[in-house]
């Protein structure tokens, strides 16, 4: 029920199509049933004329029959388009469902992305929705096929009963017995299918282990032994698969048996009735045909039950997306507009990614003022990136507050605040758009500003050299750019928005020393009022900063200018020596 309600939610906007689909269902059933009736009439007419004294049939009868058949044929052709309409609605539903959950995902917070890997989410948005026989297929084709099958079955049965109820009942007499048997076999089938699934998983597991551990296998000369192990599993699998196929074939034969026994009953009982004159020859043939038409819907319905389970499992996976919290819901709901950023500070901020985990940041207080250049240094895992993300308004503090212009960040309209912040993450992300669009990124920014910011980021010339210049499409099907170029494009993207606050997570690594100096000069000249918070490993960066914060284990263990820290902070000194040494080692040849 839950699933049907879920499906209906997506069906609602397309409900007018239901009329067409229902009409086509009925049409399709009607022509399936109507077609043999024509032959019944034909045969009866022929038979009657033949047994008349002068065996002749009015030519008009033949031609009117031809006309009727041609007409039914046309209706049938129309009905055969039915799967096309179903497929169209599958596609519509697929689009809507994907759009819906995609929209949900891009609003989610950090906690959500800790739980789901990218690959998993991609599967949920593609295969789970558009695969066969998954959500979209089931939501329209699956359901309507079930309806079509039931309606065909009912139509067929009604006609048989109407023509000759005794024969109809006789011919379907074996049906309940067969269904009863089938019902019991199904459990066994489920069991064997599960066994099969298990041994397939085992095969995969064994493959996975062997390929991942191939070094160890080779080093210990275990290749052949492992092959033998694998062969053993495969041999077992043969047995399991055979048992499944035997049962399947059994079931299949059972279905065939239903049709066949019915046919034989029709042939014998019907034949006797024709001889006795209680059934016409045409009806005899019609019964024969109808019995074969009964079979297909009967086979379809249980099959649909199986697929429904797969579809429902996928629906559960979509619902899970909607229901998993991102950890940021309801935090930044303020509506006050943000003016020019005068000061941004962290006030006793702590942050932990998960309850029970040690704090990634512990009681951090710092203030950034207009035009200030602040650097954050610290070892890997000391909490630098977390700090930047907190200032960016990506992560909500577990304790304490982010304060903007002396008011808590929560009171502001968060989009407004973000528009004033230029954030450059550690890993630059580009999208499959043109260079220009990657920098503009949906904002109202003139081409001139874009070119300017590309220049500031020292990447303009390289981009202009691309085959299609700044209109070159990047990524996926387009061109790939180097890691350093990516970084600088991300810098350009941030600068293009004329931010009041620039947050740079270790991104100057892509600039060489000279470029970096030039970059800082441009920043000082063009963005004198912008505050900067920079995570960096470079001595040069730290040296020119107004304030340096030294982070260790999520705490600030030193604060001051480069010179002050060098004099007072042991951590800072050891950090610098290590970085210097690393640099020396890296360049030593």
């Amino acid at each position, binding site marked *: 029920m839950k699933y049907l309600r879920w499906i209906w939610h997506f069906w609602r906007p397309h409900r007018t199509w239901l009329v067409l689909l229902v009409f086509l269902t009925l049409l399709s059933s009607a022509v399936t049933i109507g077609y043999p009736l024509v032959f019944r009439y034909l045969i009866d007419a022929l038979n009657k004329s033949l047994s008349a004294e002068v065996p002749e049939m009015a030519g008009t009868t033949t031609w009117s029959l031809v006309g009727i058949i041609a007409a039914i044929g046309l209706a049938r052709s129309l009905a055969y388009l039915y799967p096309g309409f179903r*497929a169209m609605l599958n596609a519509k539903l697929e689009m809507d469902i994907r759009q819906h959950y995609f929209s949900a995902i891009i609003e989610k917070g950090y906690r959500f992305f800790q739980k789901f890997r990218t690959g998993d989410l991609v599967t949920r948005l593609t295969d789970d929705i*558009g695969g066969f026989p998954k959500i979209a297929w089931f939501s329209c084709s699956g359901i309507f096929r079930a309806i079509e099958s039931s309606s065909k079955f009912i139509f067929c049965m009604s006609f048989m009963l109407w023509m000759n109820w005794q024969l109809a009942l006789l011919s379907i007499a074996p049906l309940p017995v067969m269904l009863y048997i089938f019902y019991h076999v199904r459990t066994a089938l489920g069991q064997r299918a599960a066994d099969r699934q298990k041994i397939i998983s085992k095969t995969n597991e064994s493959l996975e282990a062997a390929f991942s551990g191939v070094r160890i296998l080779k080093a210990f000369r275990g290749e052949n032994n492992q092959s033998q192990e694998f062969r053993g599993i495969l041999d077992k699998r043969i047995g399991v698969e055979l048992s499944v196929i035997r049962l399947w074939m059994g079931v299949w034969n059972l279905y065939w048996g239903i049709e066949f026994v019915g046919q034989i009953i029709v*042939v014998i009982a019907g*034949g006797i009735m024709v001889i006795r004159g209680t059934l016409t020859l045409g009806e005899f*043939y019609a019964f024969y045909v109808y019995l074969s038409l009964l079979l297909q819907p009967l086979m379809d319905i249980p099959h649909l039950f199986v697929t429904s389970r797969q579809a429902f499992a996928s629906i559960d996976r979509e619902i899970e997306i909607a229901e998993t919290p991102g950890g940021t819901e309801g935090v930044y709901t303020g509506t006050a507009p943000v003016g020019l950023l005068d000061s941004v500070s962290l006030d006793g901020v702590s942050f932990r990614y998960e309850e029970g985990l040690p704090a990634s940041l512990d009681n951090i207080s710092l203030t950034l003022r207009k035009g200030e250049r602040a650097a954050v240094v610290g070892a890997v895992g000391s909490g630098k990136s977390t700090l930047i993300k907190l200032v960016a308004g*990506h992560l909500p503090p577990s304790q304490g507050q982010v304060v903007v212009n002396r008011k808590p960040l929560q009171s502001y309209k968060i989009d407004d605040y973000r528009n004033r912040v230029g954030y450059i993450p550690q890993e630059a992300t580009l999208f499959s758009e043109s260079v220009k669009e990657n920098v503009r990124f949906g904002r109202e920014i003139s081409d001139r500003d874009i070119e300017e910011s590309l220049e500031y980021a020292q990447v303009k010339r390289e981009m202009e050299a691309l085959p299609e210049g700044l209109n070159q499409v990047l990524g996926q099907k387009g061109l790939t750019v180097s890691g350093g170029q990516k970084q600088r494009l991300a810098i350009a993207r941030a600068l293009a928005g004329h931010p009041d606050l620039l947050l740079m997570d270790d991104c100057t690594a892509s600039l060489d020393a000279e470029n970096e100096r030039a970059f800082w000069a441009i920043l000082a000249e063009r963005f004198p009022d912008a505050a900067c918070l920079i995570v960096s490993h470079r001595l040069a960066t730290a040296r020119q900063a107004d304030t340096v914060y030294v982070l260790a284990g999520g705490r600030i263990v030193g604060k001051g200018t480069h010179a002050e820290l060098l004099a007072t902070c042991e951590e800072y000194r050891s950090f610098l020596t290590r970085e210097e040494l690393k640099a020396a080692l890296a360049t030593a040849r």
Partner: protein
Amino acid sequence: MWWHLDETEEYVRRQSVRELIGKVIPLFRPHARYLFAAIGLLLLITASQLVGPLVLQHIIDVNIPANDIRGLLLAAGFYVAVATSGAAVGYLQAITLFKLGINIVTDLKSRLFNHVLHLGLDFHEQYSPGKLISRVESDTETLKDLFSDVAVNLLRNLMLFIGILTVLCIKSFSIAAFVLLLVPFLFGATFLFLTYMRKYWREWRAQWAIVTGYVTEYVQGVDIIQQFNYQDNARRRMHEVNLGKYRVEVPAMFFEYSFWSAFLYGEIIAVIIVLIIGVRGVFAGTVTLGVLVLFIEYIRQMFFPIMQLSEQLNFIQRSLVSVERIFSILETEPSVRDGKSSSEELRFEREIALENVWFAYEGEEWVLRDVSLAIKKGQKIALVGTSGGGKSTIVNLLLRFYDPQKGRVTVDGRDIRDFPIKAWRKLIGLVLQDVFLFPGNVSDNLRVFDSEVPLERVKKASAVAHANTVIERLPGQYEGELAERGVNLSVGERQLLSFARALVYDPPLLVLDEATSSVDPHTERLVQEALDRLLEGRTAVIVAHRLSTVLNADRILLVHDGVVAENGAHEELLELNGLYAKLFHLQFADFEAGKDENGGAR
């Protein structure tokens, strides 16, 4: 079935269909019996499928006019007999074919698996385990479906179609001739249709790839999207991409269904022909009523096989891609090969050496440049240096995971390439940093599935490596199943197991990549002790991360930027005050202070 996405289609070199079929046929040879049996049975089955309408005709033409109930029962009885035996034969045939398919595929699968395991590490670097699994599992399964199901059904449909036409011709050639006229049109149209659809499918797959690509990109870049308030744009783009797929998909499907809809109108035309000519024939006495019914019934059954035929042809075409991929792997030669000398000649009495070795994983990007070093029997060598400097490449060469492009690796002066690979590797016990445990029980893991190694030896090795206490605590002990990747063991415990594994064959040379991950003090002590015992009386090459290892080594090689930059004992190198001295302070000073830099954040 248009929904399958074949993401790797382009990777494989195109081979001609004839070439591929030439490769597939030998697979059947050991199972030829089954195959001939199956095809023989097919004739019987087709005959039994044809018999229903014939019985109907007989009853209408003979029994009913004669009011002959006995004859009717006889005819019905005949039908029961033929159809039942047809079903029984069909069942047998299906099972036979399935056996055929699964046997062929099982052989192929294990052959492929064994081949992949014997291929060099260069191959394994190129193919992720995931990709290899899909080669060994999915591609071969496609072949199974091809052998056991699709190919035969194709034959069956073809035979049914021919059978129907033959019976029709015999019964009344004058009517059948007209129906026959339709056949070329039907096949021609189907052929054209398939050609068109293939284009659509390709386009559809491309669209599907774009959708997947966008979703991946946006999900990955979600923080940037949120930061720049790009959500609405992202939604719009997603919608456009969705729409792009929709616009390819929906017309394609309408085209497909319209085609079949028109195609099946052929049935109506055939029936009309039969009606016009047949009815005239009935009154002229050249055609009986029963034959007319027979025609109508057969025509009703004739079109379905053709529809299926086109689907099956399609499947066959797609499975040829699988065949291509399978054989492109089977035809890959291992990059490292056995030498000609016998393993008896292999001696390690004096030293193992790298002589002017150059090595590159790719092209001319040398990872090792003219490296020479000697490992005297009984010596313990520590390799140190920053990551990417070439340490693990030396390990790879020592194990013959790769062969050097220039220079040679020698044992007692002879090139190790002269000997069988396995004989050489038998001399070495390898311990990797990342302890890899296979699914299966403990003892299988320690003897790496070699059931000829007696349990006693496994136990002895475990005792030496201090792994026995760990194992004896496990449920089932040596026969106990390890959870996936040994997650039920701690890091330190897994290390002990890997020591035991290296000891099972009592190798004279140990190659050891020390683990960097820290363990609790108790286990740390166990690991240290076990390590000492492990090294006792053995030659060892250790990629060192521990201070004690470096201090205890007979010689330290600093591998940096593809060359052995410094070489000597600890004190000598410190005195040199070069890179080693720097690295020592940097790396091991930290280690000594016990600094833990593993914070919670990424």
